[in-house]
């Protein structure tokens, strides 16, 4: 199987990898929107979507009613509706940018996925090899760089719509994203100071961060969320702001801005913005898991290699790879659940509160945190 894969031309390999990303992200994004509605219902103590079912599916025992109560068919009919309803193109918009904006949003959101490792397997020598699509050594920098371009989708959408509410939404979005990008970037610096031990070659790779959370000993096996709680907290808050999730979704702000940047959008173009938002959430949660929650290690102080050893699976890389992907996805979905939980717990901020929190709350906190950790790491690793 490996021989067959390497015998394919490079172009075909890349095409298959790219299609695999789209094939995995699109359903997860859709399922997240479903989960969003179910979690919302659960938190508000109501059943949520549980009615739609094709009549012939009702005859399937157990599974039929179960899927119906899960609301799977609402998700499917939503998706089909988005695909088949008329795609409006208002007369007053700047057509090129109006069409370009959702394409930019989705393209950039999917590009970030390529550089995030999502699992690992053990090779013949017992070493942990990360699974990722594009192995670039700049790791986290590539994620931040491509994610920072995502603001153009909102700016273009708001500006090209040529009416005042989308415009206000996009202005808010750009100011907010630029403000929180600083805290986001600075909050991960202690992690990379810690993993770049003196004498080693410098790295920004996300797989190396996980490697450092799976070493032996008390300090080696400790996840970074316990080692650097302030960094983790600030990263998470900044992530909420960067992905435009409540309580930070000023770009949409239904009560005051109708729909914000996507007021003039409908049908599939509108849906693409939400696929992009959910895949940003997915990538953001994945990066948070890699940086602070031990990546594909099942529990603190228990690394993947140890776990595979207990199960007696060292010899089968495909099984270990599958287990690591399941563990990793489980953690990522846990973080996404946290996103939804916060959405129904904390009310939306006012715009001045967001700016105040970003510039005079998080930024000084995270700079102070960096200085403290830089001093401590310099003393420990001397």
């Amino acid at each position, binding site marked *: 199987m490996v021989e067959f894969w390497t015998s394919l031309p490079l172009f075909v390999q890349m095409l298959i990898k790219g299609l695999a990303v789209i094939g995995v992200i699109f359903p997860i994004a859709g399922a997240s929107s479903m989960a969003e509605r179910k979690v919302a219902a659960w938190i508000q103590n109501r059943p949520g979507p549980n009615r739609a079912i094709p009549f012939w599916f009702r005859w399937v025992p157990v599974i039929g009613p179960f899927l119906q109560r899960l609301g799977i068919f609402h998700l499917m009919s939503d998706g089909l509706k988005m695909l088949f309803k008329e795609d409006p193109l208002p007369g007053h918009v700047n057509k090129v940018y109006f069409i370009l904006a959702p394409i930019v949003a989705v393209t950039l959101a999917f590009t970030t996925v390529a550089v995030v490792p999502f699992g690992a397997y053990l090779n013949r020598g017992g070493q942990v090899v990360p699974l990722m699509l594009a192995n670039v050594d700049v790791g986290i*920098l590539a994620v931040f760089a491509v994610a*920072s371009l995502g603001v153009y989708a909102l*700016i273009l959408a708001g500006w090209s719509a040529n009416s005042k509410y989308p415009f206000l939404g996009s202005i808010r979005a750009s100011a907010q994203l*630029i403000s929180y990008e600083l805290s986001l970037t600075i909050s991960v610096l202690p992690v990379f100071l810690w993993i770049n031990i003196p004498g080693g070659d*410098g790295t920004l790779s996300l797989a190396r961060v996980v490697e450092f959370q799976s070493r032996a000993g008390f300090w080696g096996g400790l996840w970074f969320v316990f080692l650097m709680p302030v960094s983790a907290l600030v990263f998470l808050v900044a992530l909420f702001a960067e992905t435009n999730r409540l309580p930070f979704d000023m770009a949409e702000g239904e009560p005051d801005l109708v729909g914000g940047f996507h007021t003039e959008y409908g049908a599939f173009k509108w849906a693409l913005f939400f696929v992009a938002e959910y895949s940003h959430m997915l990538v953001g949660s994945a990066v948070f898991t890699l940086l602070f929650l031990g990546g594909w290690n099942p529990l603190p102080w228990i690394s993947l290699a140890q776990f595979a050893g207990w199960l007696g699976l060292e010899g089968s890389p495909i099984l270990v790879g599958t287990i690591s992907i399941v563990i990793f996805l489980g953690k990522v979905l846990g973080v996404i659940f946290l996103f939804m939980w916060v959405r129904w717990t904390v009310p939306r901020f006012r715009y001045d509160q967001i700016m105040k929190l970003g510039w005079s709350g998080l930024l000084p906190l995270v700079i102070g945190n960096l200085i403290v950790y830089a001093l401590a790491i310099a003393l420990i690793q001397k």
Partner: protein
Amino acid sequence: MAAIFFYLFAGLTLGSAALVVANRNTVNGALCLLLSLVGLAGLFVLLDAYLLAFVLLLVYAGAVVALFLFIIMLLDTQPAARKPFKPLTLAAAGLGGALLVMGVLSFLTRARLALAGPAETAVPSLKAYAERLFTTYLLPVQVVGFLLLGAMLGVVVLSKKLDSAEKAR
């Protein structure tokens, strides 16, 4: 393969850079600048300089051009309402252009470029960049840092209305 990508990215960079100057609409201009930067990042990737490529995207494409667009949209400038240039401006522009052309020409004709093959030039690691920045090029980095600090303080002073000016009103 690499040659095709080189011409593609070079064409993108130069073409969109020309459009930045030629465009009447400022928003189009800013977006062409963005495209030009993306092309430049592509050229860096072709040279295996991933760090430079992504830093360029992060700083210039991700933040600086976004701020440009932000300001352009806030000011809401109308295209085509442009004053004719003053003679002094024209003279300065001509002089600057002539200097640039001379500089490029002298670089092309007089400089001896060491054309090393790909095998001889190692890809610089992250650590190599950092070491250079903190040893050989420490002074330029510090000077640029002070310049930026000065500019930032200037903006703070200019945008903040002073107390005396408030009282005078």
